[in-house]
């Protein structure tokens, strides 16, 4: 079970990284969300093997599951959720302003690229 989960974590990170490298904003957002899932699953895995619920005076038998990583993962999920919602709002705003979904170049990068082009034209 742990091996399956570990492979899943790897796959989620891979897919997330691939999507993050795309130029379209929606894919970047989805990529980040998937990568976040991978990270939360990894937190859960960090607690070791599954066990019975860690409740005082709960049903007996077998070792407890480690509750701390679960608490951490829960916090991380809430945070990722909030930030992803904000990111979506930002992507929507960007779409409203420009009616296209591509990530824009940095203004200064474009200016420097223009300068380089001008120099090359002068040289030739």
């Amino acid at each position: 079970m742990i091996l399956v989960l570990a492979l899943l974590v790897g796959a989620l990170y891979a897919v997330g990284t691939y999507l993050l490298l795309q130029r379209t904003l929606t894919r970047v957002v989805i990529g980040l969300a998937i990568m976040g899932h991978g990270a939360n699953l990894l937190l859960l895995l960090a607690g070791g093997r599954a066990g019975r619920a860690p409740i005082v005076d709960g049903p007996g038998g077998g070792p407890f599951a480690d509750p701390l990583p679960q608490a951490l993962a829960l916090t991380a999920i809430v945070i990722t959720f909030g930030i992803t919602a904000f990111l979506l709002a930002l992507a929507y705003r960007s779409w409203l302003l420009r009616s296209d979904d591509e990530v824009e170049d940095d203004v200064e990068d474009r200016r420097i690229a223009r300068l380089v082009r001008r120099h090359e034209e002068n040289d030739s």
Partner: protein
Amino acid sequence: MRALIALPVVLPLLAAGVSLALHRRPAVQRALSVVVLGATLVASVALLVTVERSGVAAVQVGGWPAPIGITLVADLFAAIMLVISTAMVLVVLVYAIGHPRTRDHGLFFHPLYLILATGVAASFLTGDLFNLFVAFEVTLGASYVLITLGGSRDQVRSGMTYVVISLLASTLFVTAVGLVYAATGTVNMADLAGRVAALPDGVRQALGLLLLVVFGIKAAIFPLFFWLPDSYPTAPAPVTAIFAGLLTKVGVYAIIRTQTLMFPTDGGPSTLLLAIAGATMVVGVLGAIAQNDVKRILSFHIISQIGYMVLGLGLFTVAGLAGGIFYIVHHIVVKTTLFLVGGLVEQATGTGALSRVGGLLHRTPVVAGLFLLPALSLAGLPPFSGFVAKLALVQGGLAIGAHTIVGISLAVSLLTLFSMTKIWAGVFWGAPEEAPPLAAAAGDGRLSSPALMVAPTAVLVVLSLVIAVAAAPLWDLSQRAAATLVDPAPYVEAVLP
């Protein structure tokens, strides 16, 4: 005493909630922010005095003993950072109240600003790796909204870069926390100090590097700095100033805290950190020289200056780290001031592009003076605070024979001075090359700046002069703070008695 450690986190957080409820009454909202941040500053200073007198203080929130409970720790380094950052937050708040662009967004600006203050304070005081993550997220969450508050096209574009890169760093942070927990079974930093040392070399180095990358993105060290000069300049001046002064420094603080506590070197300097420091300094200053906009030049300078702080850490001696701490304090004040002046220039002329402004020396001599002093201090000219900070670092470097990095840092200082004269010549001397935009000029050709914006800037300039004059006691304090970093036994004992 126990409450004192929690106050800098709790006060602004509670006030943020109240402030949101008061959104219909902007005047009350403003007064609340000023009063609460003033109280926070008093609490921070009281905490610094307590820690200075009776050593590292720790409190277990909720009463659960460490390493299970939530730990807040204040050692001298954390207390110094807390005081200086709270002071900046308060001064920039006054500037923001006088700034027309933030006044329009008053509804959300104040609650967000208070949450930002909460996050920064929590980052300094937390004694737990996962809580550091939460504190970072609180800070970043507020900063995401603050940087895009206007909703203009430029802000959305650069805000997008900022949010995506920060979110990636946060995901890596969660990954790092998960791996640290899997390897050691704890996330309490004092507990980790002992347990990480017991790990196999390979695992320890991998964890150390992963955390360095996570905090390196936030601190904008080479080669993870590219997002900063693109995203900072589009926000309103007070927001950029507080980001420039504090946010990257929270990253530097986290690097210093984790590397000294959990991944110390075996006595010598850390070659990796020194190489990063050198590359960060050089790339940052070269980037600054290539730019043509006041805020962009200053943004690249942040990167260059981060190199000096990492240099102090890389030396791994008390003298080096003390120099680094002194440098951080000096840098926070001076950098915030310069961005506030950049805001004054923009306010007066409507633009920050060097080719479109000029001759401000005669039209606003006060602003020119407010720029000149911190600019010279940033370059490290005597008798300003930058000189003392750089001298400390150079001496620390020479003491252990790290000549190459000392040479690089001196050359970078010279280039810093060059790019500061570029701003001076472009903004304050001469005439604009291109037609100036509609300026808010008064009848006699002089430009007006709101007093509420000039006064806080002047206060910060005076503060940076005070740092230079009172260098001896501050240096003494930095050395004692550095001693606790090099030998973290008191820190660990305070948390795990």
